[in-house]
């Protein structure tokens, strides 16, 4: 191995969204001098910035005006008055939202860390919307039984991301912007480093580190209609899986009820939190049928399913009947301009509809990946269902599965999870490094191996275009592994995916240049999509029940007896997934499983 090809750091963080940047910043803050962050796009382009509605935390700044019901106006809580919200309530909402698949110890930690994290954001300069007396303002959100979404208009993720990035710069974290990680090196359950390509020059280098942390985000790009960025191709899960780490609960993919019709861009849940209605072709507020109590503010899986039923039964809107109307006109111009300005811009730019004057066409859109790399509550990656660890390997945020979201995530809990567990991972990494962590040797020459792999891709003069394979995969995933699933569809989906994996061997990379070759990175991303999509479909086929976002028409009931457990997928010697199962941590006395009704 040539020495100039190797870069060494104490800590390497992959991904510069909230989780990764929090971990890097916290590690640096806690005395680790040499922290580097690799990101395939500039850190401020990370998809955390696209989150809109808010970040959940029990701050007790706001309460519903007495006697106005669950959708009435909110007011600030006067000093000295009793709080309306509590940790137990936040825990219960999250557990119920997760359909009891969330690990309750992790949920408790997240909920209790939440106020501290939000206050730390505020102290670091985050610009939150305010109550009359100057506290952080809060709004309602789906599945939450108290107003606890702390927000900054409808660009909460954006301001959080910029704030934490600034702090990381302040703490001298080193950023490698536009470095694409293409391999993770784990040997004997000890992490050794990563191989990355400097997109600008095309050079492939080995980066060694005592600790590697993944905060690479989700895998929503596997679906046709998605709110996710082009970048959200699940690189992190695929790399970890290929390197021998297990993946947990991959079959749980959240569909957001309000993606902009055809485009899939997110129309934040805050549209409904602020009081927006969902309307079908007949002009009915159809949520009356499905969640008479919470109506539009039921959890996302339930609302998405309800929309899909309306669409499937012919009550959808637009030419092809695939849409639903989101009606915000009654909120009034002033509230829309103050609270939902970005959403309004999106609707005008892409649907040519001004929400102040017309209802906005929307449809369910792939949104969040509940599954991912299994970790402890300190971000340490598990090696198996027994709880053994992979030394030096950490993960947090959407790429990980702690699991706090279980079978379905509640809105505003994602920014919270990324922040809380990113910070905890940062602290754990700092302790790990200060506790005398060593740089372990790298066997062989992984950089050279990857160079050869790239050269092979370039030399492979096949007939398949990457995009055609990706589009076919997206169709399969949307139609057969989407909101509703059944055995027949899932089997055929697995079949499709295997065929696509074969077709991928016959691809042709059009751009063979070294400099800024995004064609190459798109090809590698496509291979990642094919890797983890198989796990989603296979995991969904195995799980013979309906729970949260996983809805089997052939097994419509939740089955706690057989399926109150996490799916763990390992890569077998022959490259196929092998499944084992892990128990869910439950506080039986406090939050025993019950029927989930809204």
């Amino acid at each position, binding site marked *: 191995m040539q020495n100039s090809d190797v870069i060494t750091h104490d800590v390497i963080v992959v991904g510069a969204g909230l989780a990764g940047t929090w971990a890097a910043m916290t590690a640096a803050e806690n005395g680790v001098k040499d922290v580097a962050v690799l990101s395939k796009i500039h850190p401020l382009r990370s998809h955390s910035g696209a989150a809109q509605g808010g970040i959940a935390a029990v701050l007790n700044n706001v309460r519903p005006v007495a006697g106005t019901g669950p959708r009435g106006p909110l007011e600030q809580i006067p000093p000295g008055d009793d709080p309306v919200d509590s940790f137990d309530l936040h825990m219960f909402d999250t557990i119920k939202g997760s359909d009891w698949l969330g690990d309750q110890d992790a949920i408790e930690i997240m909920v209790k860390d939440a106020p501290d994290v939000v206050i730390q954001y505020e102290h670091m300069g985050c610009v*939150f919307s305010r109550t009359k007396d100057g506290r952080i303002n809060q709004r309602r959100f789906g599945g939450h039984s108290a107003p606890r979404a702390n927000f900054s208009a409808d660009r909460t993720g954006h301001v959080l991301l910029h704030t934490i990035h600034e702090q990381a710069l302040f703490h001298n974290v080193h950023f490698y912007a536009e470095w694409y990680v293409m391999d993770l090196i784990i040997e004997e359950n000890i992490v050794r480093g990563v191989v990355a390509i400097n997109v600008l020059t095309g050079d492939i280098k080995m980066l060694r580190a005592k600790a590697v942390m993944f905060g690479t985000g989700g895998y929503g790009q596997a679906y046709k209609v998605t709110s996710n960025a082009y970048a959200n191709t699940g690189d992190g899960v695929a790399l970890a899986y290929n390197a021998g780490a297990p993946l947990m609960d991959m079959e749980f993919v959240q569909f957001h009820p309000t993606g902009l019709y055809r485009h899939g861009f*997110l129309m934040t849940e805050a549209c409904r939190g602020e009081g927006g209605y969902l309307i079908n072709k007949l002009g009915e507020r159809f949520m009356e049928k499905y969640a008479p109590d919470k109506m539009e503010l039921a959890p996302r899986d339930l609302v998405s399913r309800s929309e899909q039923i309306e669409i499937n039964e012919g009550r959808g809107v637009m030419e092809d009947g695939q849409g639903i109307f989101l009606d915000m006109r009654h909120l009034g111009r002033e509230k829309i301009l103050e609270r939902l300005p970005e959403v309004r811009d999106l609707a005008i730019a892409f649907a040519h509809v001004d929400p102040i004057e017309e209802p906005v066409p929307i449809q369910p859109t792939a949104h969040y990946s509940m599954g991912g790399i299994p970790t402890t509550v300190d971000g340490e990656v598990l090696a198996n269902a027994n709880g053994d660890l992979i030394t030096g390997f950490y993960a947090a945020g959407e790429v990980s599965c702690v699991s706090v979201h279980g079978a379905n995530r509640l809105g505003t809990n994602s920014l919270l999870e990324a922040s809380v567990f990113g910070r905890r991972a940062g602290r754990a990494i700092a302790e790990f490094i200060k506790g005398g962590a060593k740089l372990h040797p790298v066997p062989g020459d992984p950089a050279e191996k990857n160079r050869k792999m790239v050269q092979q891709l370039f030399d492979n003069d096949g007939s398949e275009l990457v995009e055609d394979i990706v589009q076919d995969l997206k169709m399969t995933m949307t139609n057969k592994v989407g909101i509703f699933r059944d055995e027949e569809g899932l089997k055929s989906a697995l079949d499709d995916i295997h065929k696509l994996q074969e077709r991928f061997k016959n691809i042709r990379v059009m*751009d063979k240049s070294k400099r800024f070759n995004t064609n190459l990175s798109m090809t590698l991303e496509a291979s990642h999509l094919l890797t983890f999509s198989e796990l989603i479909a296979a995991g969904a086929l195995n799980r013979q029940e309906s729970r949260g976002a996983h809805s089997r028409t052939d097994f419509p009931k939740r089955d706690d007896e057989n399926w109150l457990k996490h799916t763990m997928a390992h890569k077998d010697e022959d490259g196929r997934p092998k499944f084992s199962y892990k128990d869910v941590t439950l506080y039986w006395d406090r939050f025993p499983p019950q029927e989930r009704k809204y």
Partner: protein
Amino acid sequence: MSNNDTQRTVTVRIQRFNPDVDKKPHMQDYQVKMWPGMTILDALHEIKTHQDGSVTYRRSCRHGICGSCAMHINGRNTLACKTPIINEVKKNNTVTIGPLPYLPVIKDMVVDRTSFWEQYLRVKPWLIPPDDIPEREFRMSQEEVDALHDAEACIMCGACYSSCAVIGLNKKYLGPHALLKAFLRVLDPRDTAPGERLEIVSQADGVARCHTIFNCIDACPKGLNPTQAIETLRKLAQKRQKYEEAKAERQKHLNEPIPS
């Protein structure tokens, strides 16, 4: 707009340049079949994935919040993902796309933003809070928050920076994006270093170098107004001491409720 009209084939004229092979940039035409609602970014994606994989540009979120895909479209800077192609092909059924002006080109539409980020770092974008950190949040009024709107909503896409004629001449100038960031911190009631920041922006390459050309306002895809922020900083820089005193006074009450 008839269905036929939105589904016609249009010409996308792209400025191509790979410094490793090309001596100078050249234009290349591609034919793309439109679909209703297609954006410039969708058209580029179609070209890259089906016609010519070497066409290179940055992109990520697809809906105007990440700031990756700022480029020069039909003579103005904007985000490719937020621009419907139908609005741009009125002349000769053609849309012309190039990289952001005034910046070194890495490849096709990908520009080198090094100077952009250096200037961003120069204004020390992070908050410098008071020593006395309360247990709960600092108190700020909604009016104080609203005053920061433009600076806080900025996505750092660089459209303003590369539309600025001064930047075209002189990369030492801080530029609208960095000044907007400085404005955010100077105006933020929680920041304790307004004097230091005003000192930075008062240097020869700071607010005085702005010649009120307004290209930044015209270029901003988020509809923000960096010129106004620069004008405000100019005024504050001229009465720095008074402003510092006012801010210190305000900071005595950061832990108290905003009086109604």
